[in-house]
Protein backbone atom coordinates (compact mmCIF):
# COMPACT_ATOMS: atom_id res chain seq x y z
CA UNK A 1 0.00 0.00 0.00
CA UNK A 2 1.28 3.40 -0.94
CA UNK A 3 2.29 5.42 2.13
CA UNK A 4 1.78 8.80 0.47
CA UNK A 5 -1.92 9.47 1.06
CA UNK A 6 -1.74 7.70 4.40
CA UNK A 7 0.78 10.23 5.65
CA UNK A 8 -2.03 12.77 5.50
CA UNK A 9 -4.98 10.47 6.11
CA UNK A 10 -3.69 8.88 9.32
CA UNK A 11 -3.22 12.11 11.30
CA UNK A 12 -6.52 13.37 9.89
CA UNK A 13 -8.24 10.26 11.22
CA UNK A 14 -6.66 10.82 14.62
CA UNK A 15 -7.84 14.43 14.54
CA UNK A 16 -11.41 13.40 13.75
CA UNK A 17 -11.60 10.50 16.20
CA UNK A 18 -9.89 11.97 19.25
CA UNK A 19 -12.68 14.39 20.26
CA UNK A 20 -14.95 11.34 20.42
CA UNK A 21 -12.66 9.50 22.84
CA UNK A 22 -14.25 8.51 26.15
CA UNK A 23 -13.82 11.30 28.59
CA UNK A 24 -12.70 9.37 31.62
CA UNK A 25 -10.08 7.28 29.90
CA UNK A 26 -7.28 9.78 29.60
CA UNK A 27 -4.65 7.07 29.45
CA UNK A 28 -6.39 5.54 26.46
CA UNK A 29 -6.29 8.89 24.67
CA UNK A 30 -2.59 9.28 25.42
CA UNK A 31 -1.94 5.77 24.19
CA UNK A 32 -3.89 6.33 20.99
CA UNK A 33 -1.93 9.50 20.27
CA UNK A 34 1.33 7.68 20.86
CA UNK A 35 0.34 4.83 18.55
CA UNK A 36 -0.66 7.29 15.84
CA UNK A 37 2.62 9.14 16.00
CA UNK A 38 4.53 5.84 15.97
CA UNK A 39 2.55 4.88 12.87
CA UNK A 40 3.60 8.17 11.31
CA UNK A 41 7.24 7.34 11.93
CA UNK A 42 6.73 3.94 10.31
CA UNK A 43 5.01 5.53 7.31
CA UNK A 44 7.78 8.10 6.95
CA UNK A 45 10.38 5.33 6.93
CA UNK A 46 8.33 3.42 4.38
CA UNK A 47 8.21 6.58 2.25
CA UNK A 48 11.96 6.93 2.59
CA UNK A 49 12.46 3.49 1.07
CA UNK A 50 10.27 4.28 -1.92
CA UNK A 51 11.64 5.59 -5.17
CA UNK A 52 10.69 9.17 -6.02
CA UNK A 53 7.21 9.24 -7.47
CA UNK A 54 4.12 11.28 -8.20
CA UNK A 55 0.78 10.09 -6.83
CA UNK A 56 -2.36 11.25 -8.56
CA UNK A 57 -5.21 11.53 -6.07
CA UNK A 58 -8.41 9.97 -7.34
CA UNK A 59 -6.56 8.47 -10.28
CA UNK A 60 -6.80 11.76 -12.17
CA UNK A 61 -3.37 11.63 -13.69
CA UNK A 62 -2.35 13.19 -16.98
CA UNK A 63 -4.13 11.81 -20.05
CA UNK A 64 -2.40 11.66 -23.41
CA UNK A 65 0.08 14.44 -23.09
CA UNK A 66 -2.16 16.75 -21.08
CA UNK A 67 -1.58 18.00 -17.57
CA UNK A 68 -2.77 16.08 -14.49
CA UNK A 69 -6.50 16.54 -14.04
CA UNK A 70 -6.61 16.29 -10.28
CA UNK A 71 -4.28 16.98 -7.40
CA UNK A 72 -0.86 15.42 -7.41
CA UNK A 73 1.15 14.38 -4.39
CA UNK A 74 4.86 14.30 -5.03
CA UNK A 75 7.44 12.33 -3.12
CA UNK A 76 10.99 13.39 -3.74
CA UNK A 77 14.17 13.84 -1.74
CA UNK A 78 13.11 17.05 -0.03
CA UNK A 79 9.63 15.88 0.91
CA UNK A 80 11.01 12.58 2.20
CA UNK A 81 13.38 14.49 4.44
CA UNK A 82 10.62 16.79 5.71
CA UNK A 83 8.18 13.96 6.31
CA UNK A 84 10.81 12.12 8.32
CA UNK A 85 11.64 15.16 10.46
CA UNK A 86 7.97 15.88 11.07
CA UNK A 87 7.29 12.29 12.12
CA UNK A 88 10.29 12.01 14.45
CA UNK A 89 9.79 15.33 16.22
CA UNK A 90 6.05 14.66 16.49
CA UNK A 91 6.78 11.32 18.13
CA UNK A 92 9.14 12.91 20.65
CA UNK A 93 6.66 15.67 21.47
CA UNK A 94 3.78 13.23 21.88
CA UNK A 95 5.95 11.22 24.25
CA UNK A 96 6.40 14.40 26.28
CA UNK A 97 2.80 15.59 26.21
CA UNK A 98 0.82 13.25 28.52
CA UNK A 99 2.54 14.41 31.69
CA UNK A 100 2.97 18.02 30.69
CA UNK A 101 -0.59 18.51 29.48
CA UNK A 102 -2.09 16.95 32.62
CA UNK A 103 -2.40 20.42 34.10
CA UNK A 104 -4.58 21.68 31.28
CA UNK A 105 -8.19 20.75 30.63
CA UNK A 106 -9.46 19.69 27.23
CA UNK A 107 -6.72 17.19 26.51
CA UNK A 108 -8.66 15.29 23.85
CA UNK A 109 -9.20 18.43 21.81
CA UNK A 110 -5.56 19.30 22.34
CA UNK A 111 -4.53 16.05 20.71
CA UNK A 112 -7.11 16.51 17.99
CA UNK A 113 -5.78 19.95 17.06
CA UNK A 114 -2.25 18.63 17.36
CA UNK A 115 -2.80 15.90 14.80
CA UNK A 116 -4.74 18.21 12.50
CA UNK A 117 -1.71 20.48 12.54
CA UNK A 118 0.54 17.52 11.71
CA UNK A 119 -1.80 16.53 8.87
CA UNK A 120 -1.64 20.08 7.55
CA UNK A 121 2.14 20.07 7.61
CA UNK A 122 2.38 16.69 5.91
CA UNK A 123 -0.11 17.88 3.32
CA UNK A 124 1.95 21.00 2.58
CA UNK A 125 5.13 18.99 2.30
CA UNK A 126 3.71 16.38 -0.03
CA UNK A 127 1.50 18.42 -2.28
CA UNK A 128 2.31 19.22 -5.88
CA UNK A 129 -0.52 21.68 -6.36
CA UNK A 130 -0.55 25.37 -5.48
CA UNK A 131 -4.16 25.62 -4.35
CA UNK A 132 -3.86 22.45 -2.33
CA UNK A 133 -0.79 24.01 -0.73
CA UNK A 134 -2.96 26.93 0.36
CA UNK A 135 -5.65 24.66 1.80
CA UNK A 136 -3.26 22.55 3.86
CA UNK A 137 -1.35 25.64 4.91
CA UNK A 138 -4.62 26.90 6.33
CA UNK A 139 -5.28 23.66 8.20
CA UNK A 140 -1.88 23.82 9.86
CA UNK A 141 -2.19 27.55 10.54
CA UNK A 142 -5.70 27.47 12.00
CA UNK A 143 -4.81 24.58 14.26
CA UNK A 144 -1.77 26.51 15.43
CA UNK A 145 -3.78 29.69 16.11
CA UNK A 146 -6.07 27.71 18.35
CA UNK A 147 -3.20 25.89 20.02
CA UNK A 148 -1.30 29.10 20.80
CA UNK A 149 -4.34 30.36 22.70
CA UNK A 150 -4.93 26.96 24.31
CA UNK A 151 -4.31 28.20 27.84
CA UNK A 152 -6.80 31.08 27.42
CA UNK A 153 -4.70 33.44 29.51
CA UNK A 154 -4.37 37.13 28.65
CA UNK A 155 -1.02 36.97 26.98
CA UNK A 156 -1.78 33.80 25.09
CA UNK A 157 -4.99 35.20 23.62
CA UNK A 158 -3.32 38.42 22.58
CA UNK A 159 -0.43 36.58 20.95
CA UNK A 160 -2.83 34.24 19.21
CA UNK A 161 -4.95 37.07 17.86
CA UNK A 162 -1.99 38.86 16.41
CA UNK A 163 -0.70 35.60 14.95
CA UNK A 164 -4.10 34.92 13.44
CA UNK A 165 -4.39 38.35 11.85
CA UNK A 166 -0.92 38.36 10.33
CA UNK A 167 -1.21 34.71 9.35
CA UNK A 168 -4.50 35.36 7.57
CA UNK A 169 -3.06 38.30 5.65
CA UNK A 170 -0.26 35.97 4.60
CA UNK A 171 -2.76 33.33 3.51
CA UNK A 172 -4.78 35.75 1.41
CA UNK A 173 -1.61 37.04 -0.22
CA UNK A 174 -0.69 33.49 -1.13
CA UNK A 175 -4.18 32.89 -2.49
CA UNK A 176 -3.96 36.06 -4.57
CA UNK A 177 -0.61 34.87 -5.90
CA UNK A 178 -2.12 31.53 -6.85
CA UNK A 179 -4.96 33.37 -8.56
CA UNK A 180 -2.54 35.51 -10.58
CA UNK A 181 -0.59 32.48 -11.71
CA UNK A 182 -3.85 30.79 -12.66
CA UNK A 183 -4.93 33.85 -14.60
CA UNK A 184 -1.80 33.73 -16.69
CA UNK A 185 -1.22 30.00 -17.01
CA UNK A 186 -4.63 28.40 -16.58
CA UNK A 187 -3.43 25.78 -14.12
CA UNK A 188 -2.53 25.39 -10.48
CA UNK A 189 -0.45 22.23 -10.79
CA UNK A 190 3.12 23.01 -9.75
CA UNK A 191 4.79 20.93 -12.44
CA UNK A 192 2.52 22.26 -15.17
CA UNK A 193 3.04 25.83 -13.95
CA UNK A 194 6.74 25.20 -13.80
CA UNK A 195 7.01 24.06 -17.39
CA UNK A 196 4.85 26.94 -18.60
CA UNK A 197 6.84 29.52 -16.65
CA UNK A 198 10.06 28.03 -17.96
CA UNK A 199 8.68 28.25 -21.49
CA UNK A 200 7.80 31.90 -20.90
CA UNK A 201 11.35 32.59 -19.79
CA UNK A 202 10.84 32.66 -16.05
CA UNK A 203 11.56 35.72 -13.96
CA UNK A 204 14.33 36.86 -16.26
CA UNK A 205 11.77 37.14 -19.01
CA UNK A 206 13.93 35.68 -21.76
CA UNK A 207 11.15 33.79 -23.45
CA UNK A 208 8.95 34.62 -26.38
CA UNK A 209 5.79 35.26 -24.39
CA UNK A 210 6.82 38.45 -22.65
CA UNK A 211 7.45 41.27 -24.98
CA UNK A 212 11.05 42.15 -25.85
CA UNK A 213 12.88 40.33 -23.14
CA UNK A 214 11.20 42.32 -20.39
CA UNK A 215 10.54 40.51 -17.17
CA UNK A 216 6.92 39.61 -16.64
CA UNK A 217 5.52 42.08 -14.10
CA UNK A 218 2.79 39.63 -13.26
CA UNK A 219 5.29 36.95 -12.34
CA UNK A 220 7.27 39.45 -10.28
CA UNK A 221 4.14 40.50 -8.41
CA UNK A 222 3.16 36.89 -7.78
CA UNK A 223 6.68 36.12 -6.53
CA UNK A 224 6.54 39.14 -4.23
CA UNK A 225 3.24 37.94 -2.84
CA UNK A 226 4.65 34.47 -2.20
CA UNK A 227 7.77 35.85 -0.54
CA UNK A 228 5.70 38.13 1.71
CA UNK A 229 3.09 35.49 2.48
CA UNK A 230 5.35 32.53 3.05
CA UNK A 231 7.97 34.78 4.65
CA UNK A 232 5.34 35.80 7.18
CA UNK A 233 4.63 32.16 7.92
CA UNK A 234 8.37 31.53 8.26
CA UNK A 235 8.83 34.66 10.41
CA UNK A 236 11.68 36.17 8.40
CA UNK A 237 12.78 39.45 9.84
CA UNK A 238 10.61 42.19 8.45
CA UNK A 239 7.66 39.84 8.98
CA UNK A 240 8.61 38.35 12.34
CA UNK A 241 6.47 40.48 14.65
CA UNK A 242 4.11 37.66 15.65
CA UNK A 243 6.63 34.96 16.52
CA UNK A 244 8.25 36.17 19.75
CA UNK A 245 4.80 36.38 21.35
CA UNK A 246 3.14 33.39 19.77
CA UNK A 247 5.78 30.71 20.25
CA UNK A 248 6.45 31.22 23.97
CA UNK A 249 2.75 31.63 24.77
CA UNK A 250 1.73 28.21 23.54
CA UNK A 251 1.87 25.17 25.84
CA UNK A 252 5.42 23.80 25.67
CA UNK A 253 4.79 20.81 23.39
CA UNK A 254 3.19 23.20 20.93
CA UNK A 255 6.05 25.68 21.24
CA UNK A 256 8.36 22.86 20.28
CA UNK A 257 6.17 21.93 17.32
CA UNK A 258 5.77 25.52 16.14
CA UNK A 259 9.42 26.48 16.39
CA UNK A 260 10.78 23.09 15.44
CA UNK A 261 8.45 22.18 12.60
CA UNK A 262 5.67 24.55 11.64
CA UNK A 263 7.68 27.58 10.54
CA UNK A 264 9.84 25.25 8.49
CA UNK A 265 7.18 23.06 6.91
CA UNK A 266 4.71 25.80 5.98
CA UNK A 267 7.24 28.61 5.76
CA UNK A 268 10.73 27.68 4.65
CA UNK A 269 9.91 24.46 2.81
CA UNK A 270 6.88 25.92 1.04
CA UNK A 271 8.85 29.03 0.07
CA UNK A 272 11.72 26.95 -1.25
CA UNK A 273 9.37 24.70 -3.16
CA UNK A 274 7.54 27.60 -4.76
CA UNK A 275 10.67 29.58 -5.60
CA UNK A 276 12.71 26.70 -6.96
CA UNK A 277 10.18 24.34 -8.43
CA UNK A 278 7.55 26.75 -9.69
CA UNK A 279 9.30 30.06 -10.30
CA UNK A 280 12.59 28.44 -11.24
CA UNK A 281 15.08 30.22 -9.03
CA UNK A 282 17.92 27.83 -9.82
CA UNK A 283 17.53 27.54 -13.60
CA UNK A 284 17.19 31.10 -14.64
CA UNK A 285 19.86 33.63 -13.86
CA UNK A 286 17.98 35.59 -11.23
CA UNK A 287 20.65 37.28 -9.11
CA UNK A 288 18.17 39.85 -7.78
CA UNK A 289 15.86 37.22 -6.36
CA UNK A 290 18.75 35.24 -4.84
CA UNK A 291 20.19 38.39 -3.31
CA UNK A 292 16.81 39.38 -1.91
CA UNK A 293 16.35 35.99 -0.28
CA UNK A 294 19.87 36.05 1.14
CA UNK A 295 19.38 39.54 2.54
CA UNK A 296 16.18 38.36 4.23
CA UNK A 297 18.20 35.50 5.68
CA UNK A 298 20.98 37.79 6.93
CA UNK A 299 18.47 40.22 8.46
CA UNK A 300 16.74 37.38 10.29
CA UNK A 301 20.05 35.94 11.48
CA UNK A 302 21.35 39.23 12.85
CA UNK A 303 18.05 40.63 14.09
CA UNK A 304 16.94 37.46 15.85
CA UNK A 305 20.40 36.96 17.34
CA UNK A 306 20.70 40.44 18.82
CA UNK A 307 17.14 40.46 20.16
CA UNK A 308 17.75 37.10 21.82
CA UNK A 309 20.70 38.33 23.89
CA UNK A 310 18.74 40.50 26.26
CA UNK A 311 15.92 38.07 26.97
CA UNK A 312 15.36 36.80 30.49
CA UNK A 313 12.38 34.62 29.60
CA UNK A 314 13.73 31.19 28.63
CA UNK A 315 11.08 30.45 26.00
CA UNK A 316 11.16 33.96 24.56
CA UNK A 317 14.91 33.70 24.13
CA UNK A 318 14.42 30.44 22.28
CA UNK A 319 11.79 32.05 20.06
CA UNK A 320 14.14 34.86 19.04
CA UNK A 321 16.90 32.36 18.43
CA UNK A 322 14.50 30.47 16.10
CA UNK A 323 14.26 33.59 13.93
CA UNK A 324 18.04 33.76 13.88
CA UNK A 325 18.53 30.10 13.00
CA UNK A 326 15.88 30.13 10.27
CA UNK A 327 17.95 32.98 8.83
CA UNK A 328 20.84 30.55 8.42
CA UNK A 329 18.59 28.13 6.56
CA UNK A 330 17.31 30.87 4.27
CA UNK A 331 20.84 32.12 3.66
CA UNK A 332 21.95 28.66 2.55
CA UNK A 333 18.93 28.19 0.33
CA UNK A 334 19.25 31.69 -1.11
CA UNK A 335 22.70 30.85 -2.42
CA UNK A 336 20.90 28.57 -4.88
CA UNK A 337 24.01 26.45 -5.31
CA UNK A 338 23.75 22.69 -4.71
CA UNK A 339 26.06 22.95 -1.71
CA UNK A 340 24.16 25.92 -0.31
CA UNK A 341 20.76 24.23 -0.58
CA UNK A 342 22.07 21.00 0.92
CA UNK A 343 23.64 22.95 3.79
CA UNK A 344 20.43 24.91 4.34
CA UNK A 345 18.37 21.74 4.46
CA UNK A 346 20.90 20.16 6.81
CA UNK A 347 20.57 23.10 9.17
CA UNK A 348 16.79 22.94 8.86
CA UNK A 349 16.86 19.29 9.95
CA UNK A 350 19.24 20.03 12.81
CA UNK A 351 17.32 23.05 13.97
CA UNK A 352 14.09 21.06 14.05
CA UNK A 353 15.75 18.61 16.42
CA UNK A 354 17.64 20.88 18.78
CA UNK A 355 15.09 23.69 18.94
CA UNK A 356 12.29 21.32 19.86
CA UNK A 357 14.67 19.75 22.40
CA UNK A 358 15.44 23.14 23.93
CA UNK A 359 11.77 24.08 24.14
CA UNK A 360 11.04 20.78 25.83
CA UNK A 361 13.87 21.57 28.28
CA UNK A 362 12.37 24.97 29.01
CA UNK A 363 9.01 23.29 29.53
CA UNK A 364 10.54 20.70 31.84
CA UNK A 365 12.06 23.44 34.00
CA UNK A 366 8.77 25.30 34.05
CA UNK A 367 6.94 22.07 34.89
CA UNK A 368 8.94 21.63 38.09
CA UNK A 369 9.79 25.17 39.12
CA UNK A 370 6.86 27.09 37.68
CA UNK A 371 9.04 29.85 36.27
CA UNK A 372 10.40 30.72 32.85
CA UNK A 373 12.69 33.50 34.06
CA UNK A 374 16.34 32.61 33.75
CA UNK A 375 17.45 34.85 36.62
CA UNK A 376 15.20 32.99 39.04
CA UNK A 377 16.67 29.61 38.16
CA UNK A 378 20.14 28.43 39.08
CA UNK A 379 21.99 25.20 39.75
CA UNK A 380 19.19 23.06 38.41
CA UNK A 381 21.70 20.50 37.15
CA UNK A 382 21.90 19.12 40.68
CA UNK A 383 18.21 18.38 40.89
CA UNK A 384 17.29 17.73 37.24
CA UNK A 385 20.27 15.89 35.75
CA UNK A 386 18.51 14.59 32.64
CA UNK A 387 17.06 17.99 31.76
CA UNK A 388 20.36 19.68 32.45
CA UNK A 389 22.41 17.26 30.37
CA UNK A 390 20.04 17.28 27.40
CA UNK A 391 19.78 21.05 27.47
CA UNK A 392 23.56 21.21 27.45
CA UNK A 393 23.61 19.05 24.32
CA UNK A 394 20.93 21.22 22.73
CA UNK A 395 22.68 24.48 23.59
CA UNK A 396 26.01 23.30 22.28
CA UNK A 397 24.39 22.04 19.08
CA UNK A 398 22.61 25.30 18.37
CA UNK A 399 25.73 27.29 19.21
CA UNK A 400 27.71 25.25 16.71
CA UNK A 401 30.18 23.45 18.93
CA UNK A 402 31.69 20.23 17.55
CA UNK A 403 30.92 17.30 17.57
CA UNK A 404 27.24 18.23 17.63
CA UNK A 405 25.18 18.52 14.47
CA UNK A 406 24.80 22.31 14.52
CA UNK A 407 28.51 22.73 14.02
CA UNK A 408 28.55 20.77 10.80
CA UNK A 409 25.55 22.43 9.23
CA UNK A 410 26.79 25.93 10.06
CA UNK A 411 30.20 24.96 8.74
CA UNK A 412 28.64 23.79 5.50
CA UNK A 413 26.63 26.99 5.14
CA UNK A 414 29.72 29.11 5.68
CA UNK A 415 31.71 26.96 3.26
CA UNK A 416 28.94 27.31 0.69
CA UNK A 417 29.01 31.10 1.12
CA UNK A 418 32.75 31.14 0.62
CA UNK A 419 32.50 28.85 -2.39
CA UNK A 420 29.97 31.22 -3.93
CA UNK A 421 32.24 34.17 -3.28
CA UNK A 422 29.98 35.72 -0.64
CA UNK A 423 32.68 36.51 1.90
CA UNK A 424 30.68 39.20 3.72
CA UNK A 425 27.76 36.88 4.31
CA UNK A 426 30.12 34.15 5.47
CA UNK A 427 31.75 36.42 8.04
CA UNK A 428 28.35 37.63 9.30
CA UNK A 429 27.34 33.99 9.73
CA UNK A 430 30.47 33.38 11.81
CA UNK A 431 29.79 36.43 13.99
CA UNK A 432 26.16 35.46 14.60
CA UNK A 433 27.33 31.99 15.50
CA UNK A 434 29.54 33.48 18.21
CA UNK A 435 26.61 35.56 19.48
CA UNK A 436 24.52 32.39 19.61
CA UNK A 437 27.20 30.68 21.64
CA UNK A 438 27.21 33.69 23.95
CA UNK A 439 23.54 33.68 24.82
CA UNK A 440 23.31 29.95 25.17
CA UNK A 441 26.26 29.96 27.54
CA UNK A 442 24.29 32.54 29.50
CA UNK A 443 21.31 30.16 29.58
CA UNK A 444 23.46 27.30 30.80
CA UNK A 445 25.17 29.41 33.43
CA UNK A 446 22.05 31.03 34.81
CA UNK A 447 19.71 28.07 34.73
CA UNK A 448 21.67 24.91 35.15
CA UNK A 449 25.13 25.63 36.57
CA UNK A 450 26.14 27.52 39.65
CA UNK A 451 24.77 27.24 43.15
CA UNK A 452 21.37 25.69 43.68
CA UNK A 453 18.99 28.26 45.10
CA UNK A 454 17.25 27.42 48.34
CA UNK A 455 13.77 27.55 46.92
CA UNK A 456 14.62 24.82 44.41
CA UNK A 457 15.89 22.36 47.06
CA UNK A 458 12.84 20.15 46.61
CA UNK A 459 12.66 20.21 42.85
CA UNK A 460 12.67 16.74 41.30
CA UNK A 461 13.50 15.37 37.88
CA UNK A 462 10.59 15.33 35.41
CA UNK A 463 8.55 12.13 34.84
CA UNK A 464 10.21 9.32 32.87
CA UNK A 465 8.30 9.87 29.63
CA UNK A 466 9.27 13.51 29.45
CA UNK A 467 12.89 12.69 30.19
CA UNK A 468 12.83 9.89 27.61
CA UNK A 469 11.61 12.23 24.89
CA UNK A 470 14.34 14.76 25.68
CA UNK A 471 17.01 12.06 25.71
CA UNK A 472 15.77 10.77 22.36
CA UNK A 473 16.15 14.20 20.80
CA UNK A 474 19.55 14.74 22.42
CA UNK A 475 20.80 11.46 20.95
CA UNK A 476 19.50 12.56 17.55
CA UNK A 477 21.56 15.75 17.93
CA UNK A 478 24.63 13.56 17.98
CA UNK A 479 23.40 11.04 15.43
CA UNK A 480 22.59 13.56 12.71
CA UNK A 481 26.21 14.66 12.75
CA UNK A 482 26.68 11.50 10.69
CA UNK A 483 25.09 13.30 7.76
CA UNK A 484 28.48 14.95 7.38
CA UNK A 485 29.87 11.68 6.02
CA UNK A 486 29.61 11.06 2.35
CA UNK A 487 27.20 8.11 2.24
CA UNK A 488 24.39 9.47 4.40
CA UNK A 489 24.96 12.97 3.08
CA UNK A 490 24.32 11.87 -0.46
CA UNK A 491 21.36 9.73 0.56
CA UNK A 492 19.56 12.47 2.48
CA UNK A 493 20.89 15.89 1.60
CA UNK A 494 22.16 15.32 -1.91
CA UNK A 495 18.90 13.69 -2.84
CA UNK A 496 16.89 16.49 -1.25
CA UNK A 497 18.96 19.19 -2.86
CA UNK A 498 18.56 17.62 -6.29
CA UNK A 499 14.79 17.71 -5.95
CA UNK A 500 15.02 21.51 -5.88
CA UNK A 501 17.76 22.10 -8.41
CA UNK A 502 16.68 19.59 -11.05
CA UNK A 503 13.41 21.15 -11.99
CA UNK A 504 12.92 19.29 -15.23
CA UNK A 505 12.96 15.91 -13.51
CA UNK A 506 10.22 17.07 -11.19
CA UNK A 507 8.12 18.17 -14.14
CA UNK A 508 8.70 14.92 -16.01
CA UNK A 509 7.78 12.84 -12.98
CA UNK A 510 4.44 14.58 -12.55
CA UNK A 511 3.53 14.99 -16.20
CA UNK A 512 4.28 11.40 -17.21
CA UNK A 513 0.98 10.02 -18.51
CA UNK A 514 -0.55 7.39 -16.31
CA UNK A 515 -0.95 3.94 -17.76
CA UNK A 516 -4.30 2.89 -19.11
CA UNK A 517 -6.83 3.94 -16.56
CA UNK A 518 -8.94 1.18 -15.13
CA UNK A 519 -11.93 3.43 -14.91
CA UNK A 520 -12.53 4.62 -18.39
CA UNK A 521 -15.67 6.60 -18.49
CA UNK A 522 -17.38 4.79 -21.32
CA UNK A 523 -17.24 1.40 -19.67
CA UNK A 524 -19.01 2.60 -16.61
CA UNK A 525 -21.82 4.57 -18.19
CA UNK A 526 -25.13 3.09 -19.11
Amino acid at each position, binding site marked *: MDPLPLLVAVPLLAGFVLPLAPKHRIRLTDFFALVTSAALVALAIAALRQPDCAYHVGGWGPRAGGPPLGITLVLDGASKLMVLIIAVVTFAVILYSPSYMARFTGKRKFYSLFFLMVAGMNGVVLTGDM*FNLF*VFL*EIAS*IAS*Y*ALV*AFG*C*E*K*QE*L*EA*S*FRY*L*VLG*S*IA*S*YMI*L*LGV*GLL*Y*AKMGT*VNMAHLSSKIAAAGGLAGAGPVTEAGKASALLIFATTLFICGLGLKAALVPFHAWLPDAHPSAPTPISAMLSGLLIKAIGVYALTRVLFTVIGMSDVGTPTLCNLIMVLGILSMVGGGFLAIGQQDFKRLLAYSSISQVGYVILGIGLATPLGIAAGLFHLLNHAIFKSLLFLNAGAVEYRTGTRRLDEMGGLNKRMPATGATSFVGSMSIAGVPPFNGFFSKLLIILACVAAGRYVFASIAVVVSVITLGYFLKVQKQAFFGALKDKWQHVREVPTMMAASMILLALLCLATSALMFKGPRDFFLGHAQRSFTQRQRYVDRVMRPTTADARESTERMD
Partner: protein
Amino acid sequence: MVYLLCLIVFSIGIYGVLTQRNLIKIILSLAVAESAVNIFLVLLGYRTKGIAPIDDGTAANFAGAAVDPLPQAMVLTAIVIGLGVLALSMVIAIRLYHRYGTYDITKIRKLRG
Protein backbone atom coordinates in the same frame (compact mmCIF):
# COMPACT_ATOMS: atom_id res chain seq x y z
CA MET B 1 -10.75 47.74 -14.76
CA VAL B 2 -12.60 44.98 -12.94
CA TYR B 3 -9.32 43.45 -11.80
CA LEU B 4 -8.08 46.85 -10.66
CA LEU B 5 -11.16 47.34 -8.49
CA CYS B 6 -10.56 43.95 -6.88
CA LEU B 7 -7.00 44.93 -6.14
CA ILE B 8 -8.15 48.20 -4.60
CA VAL B 9 -10.65 46.43 -2.36
CA PHE B 10 -7.92 43.99 -1.33
CA SER B 11 -5.62 46.89 -0.46
CA ILE B 12 -8.39 48.59 1.53
CA GLY B 13 -8.79 45.40 3.52
CA ILE B 14 -5.07 44.98 4.19
CA TYR B 15 -4.72 48.63 5.15
CA GLY B 16 -7.67 48.29 7.50
CA VAL B 17 -6.16 45.23 9.16
CA LEU B 18 -2.88 47.01 9.73
CA THR B 19 -4.28 50.30 11.01
CA GLN B 20 -7.51 49.58 12.85
CA ARG B 21 -7.52 49.42 16.63
CA ASN B 22 -10.76 47.63 17.30
CA LEU B 23 -10.62 43.83 17.20
CA ILE B 24 -14.00 43.57 15.46
CA LYS B 25 -12.92 46.11 12.87
CA ILE B 26 -9.74 44.14 12.22
CA ILE B 27 -11.82 41.02 11.66
CA LEU B 28 -14.12 42.91 9.28
CA SER B 29 -11.09 44.17 7.35
CA LEU B 30 -9.86 40.60 7.00
CA ALA B 31 -13.26 39.62 5.63
CA VAL B 32 -13.04 42.46 3.09
CA ALA B 33 -9.60 41.35 1.91
CA GLU B 34 -10.82 37.78 1.59
CA SER B 35 -13.88 38.76 -0.43
CA ALA B 36 -11.71 40.76 -2.84
CA VAL B 37 -9.59 37.68 -3.55
CA ASN B 38 -12.71 35.58 -4.05
CA ILE B 39 -14.25 38.00 -6.53
CA PHE B 40 -10.94 38.17 -8.37
CA LEU B 41 -10.85 34.39 -8.78
CA VAL B 42 -14.41 34.19 -10.07
CA LEU B 43 -13.77 37.07 -12.49
CA LEU B 44 -10.90 35.08 -13.97
CA GLY B 45 -13.18 32.25 -14.93
CA TYR B 46 -15.74 34.32 -16.81
CA ARG B 47 -16.02 34.28 -20.57
CA THR B 48 -18.09 36.67 -22.62
CA LYS B 49 -21.64 35.35 -23.10
CA GLY B 50 -20.77 32.39 -20.91
CA ILE B 51 -23.23 29.97 -19.33
CA ALA B 52 -23.08 28.38 -15.90
CA PRO B 53 -20.95 25.22 -15.80
CA ILE B 54 -23.90 22.94 -15.23
CA ASP B 55 -24.33 20.42 -18.00
CA ASP B 56 -27.97 19.40 -17.91
CA GLY B 57 -28.01 18.41 -21.55
CA THR B 58 -30.03 21.43 -22.70
CA ALA B 59 -27.22 23.73 -23.85
CA ALA B 60 -26.41 23.26 -27.51
CA ASN B 61 -22.74 24.07 -27.28
CA PHE B 62 -21.88 23.44 -23.68
CA ALA B 63 -18.15 22.91 -24.12
CA GLY B 64 -17.81 26.11 -26.10
CA ALA B 65 -19.83 28.32 -23.80
CA ALA B 66 -19.45 27.23 -20.19
CA VAL B 67 -17.42 29.45 -17.89
CA ASP B 68 -14.34 28.02 -16.20
CA PRO B 69 -15.46 25.78 -13.29
CA LEU B 70 -12.08 25.51 -11.56
CA PRO B 71 -11.93 29.04 -10.09
CA GLN B 72 -15.49 28.59 -8.86
CA ALA B 73 -14.53 25.41 -7.07
CA MET B 74 -11.52 27.15 -5.56
CA VAL B 75 -13.66 30.07 -4.40
CA LEU B 76 -16.14 27.71 -2.76
CA THR B 77 -13.26 26.25 -0.80
CA ALA B 78 -11.91 29.70 0.01
CA ILE B 79 -15.30 30.94 1.26
CA VAL B 80 -15.57 28.09 3.72
CA ILE B 81 -12.00 28.61 4.87
CA GLY B 82 -12.79 32.29 5.37
CA LEU B 83 -15.81 31.36 7.47
CA GLY B 84 -13.68 29.12 9.65
CA VAL B 85 -11.03 31.79 10.17
CA LEU B 86 -13.71 34.34 10.98
CA ALA B 87 -15.43 32.13 13.54
CA LEU B 88 -12.15 31.36 15.27
CA SER B 89 -11.05 34.99 15.29
CA MET B 90 -14.42 36.06 16.74
CA VAL B 91 -13.99 33.56 19.53
CA ILE B 92 -10.51 34.80 20.32
CA ALA B 93 -11.74 38.40 20.21
CA ILE B 94 -14.54 37.58 22.63
CA ARG B 95 -12.18 35.86 25.00
CA LEU B 96 -9.89 38.87 24.81
CA TYR B 97 -12.82 41.11 25.64
CA HIS B 98 -13.61 38.83 28.54
CA ARG B 99 -10.06 39.12 29.85
CA TYR B 100 -9.35 42.78 29.23
CA GLY B 101 -12.76 44.45 29.09
CA THR B 102 -12.06 46.19 25.82
CA TYR B 103 -11.90 45.54 22.12
CA ASP B 104 -9.19 48.16 21.63
CA ILE B 105 -5.91 46.51 20.72
CA THR B 106 -3.70 49.40 21.83
CA LYS B 107 -5.35 49.40 25.25
CA ILE B 108 -4.94 45.62 25.39
CA ARG B 109 -1.24 45.99 24.75
CA LYS B 110 -0.94 48.58 27.49
CA LEU B 111 -2.87 46.43 29.95
CA ARG B 112 -0.62 43.50 29.22
CA GLY B 113 2.28 45.53 30.47
